């Protein structure tokens, strides 16, 4: 089981791409929240969150993403997700959040919107 959690931010065509790896649960979600809030506070209203490296995602992680989505949309932007791992996609599908987020299977598609 991969328990390494990591968050990195790098710009792609002017849009911050927040790359997440490892398990996102109640212990690690606050770190993700802080990184997302920092980007919005710096004036970035549109973010891409790359979840390709995520091995586990629970309701607290989803709550953080929903909160960040609201912040982005309130600022006139969007929060786009990148995911292609079946077990991660399944969590969005069973909660209906795949209909709420803009989801792509590559960072490039997400950045281009």
């Amino acid at each position, binding site marked *: 089981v991969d328990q390494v959690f990591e968050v990195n931010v790098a710009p792609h065509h002017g849009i911050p791409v927040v790359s997440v790896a490892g398990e996102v*649960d109640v*212990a690690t979600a606050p770190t993700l929240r802080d990184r997302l809030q920092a980007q919005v506070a710096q004036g970035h209203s549109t973010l891409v969150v790359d979840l390709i490296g995520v091995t586990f995602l*629970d309701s607290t992680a989803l*709550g953080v993403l*929903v909160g960040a989505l609201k912040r982005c949309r309130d600022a006139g932007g969007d929060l786009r997700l990148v995911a292609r791992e079946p077990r991660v996609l399944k969590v969005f599908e069973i909660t209906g959040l795949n209909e709420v987020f803009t989801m792509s299977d590559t960072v490039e598609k997400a950045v281009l919107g």
Partner: protein
Amino acid sequence: MTVFPFPQWRRSDDEPMPTLEGNESVELRFPARADRLVLARLVTASVAAAAGFDVAELDDLRLAVDELCLAVGEEVAGGGTLWLRIATTGSEVTVWCFAEHGEYDDNDDAPTLGPVPGGAPPSVTAELSERILDALVDSHGRSRDHGTTTAWFRKRRQP
């Protein structure tokens, strides 16, 4: 008397909380801290793997037990113990979780159990947790007795 403290909490069915009924079980007792939840996931998956659940089902169980612990862990966010009991029969796994105040103090910087401040409202996170359990297990529920909530689920192995 059985009480479900959250009106939005929909049970999968009207099944009463299962009992051990003499089945072998594994018990885990750990501090109700966010950074210890991984133990619940690891142990549950290990027990279910030994019972023949496949990889996809183990993924489901890891997430389901995480949500189960979150559901009761909020009761002891200030410090306490989570008790987990995992029982398997030939074709299904049943997991119970309840929290107990005291013994372990949450006196460090580890995040507490429950919704993360600054995320979605707690009611939204609870609804997401409910949808996850509805989808991943065959039945689940909560019962409250003597001031303690026990949450449980049951999942059958695919034939």
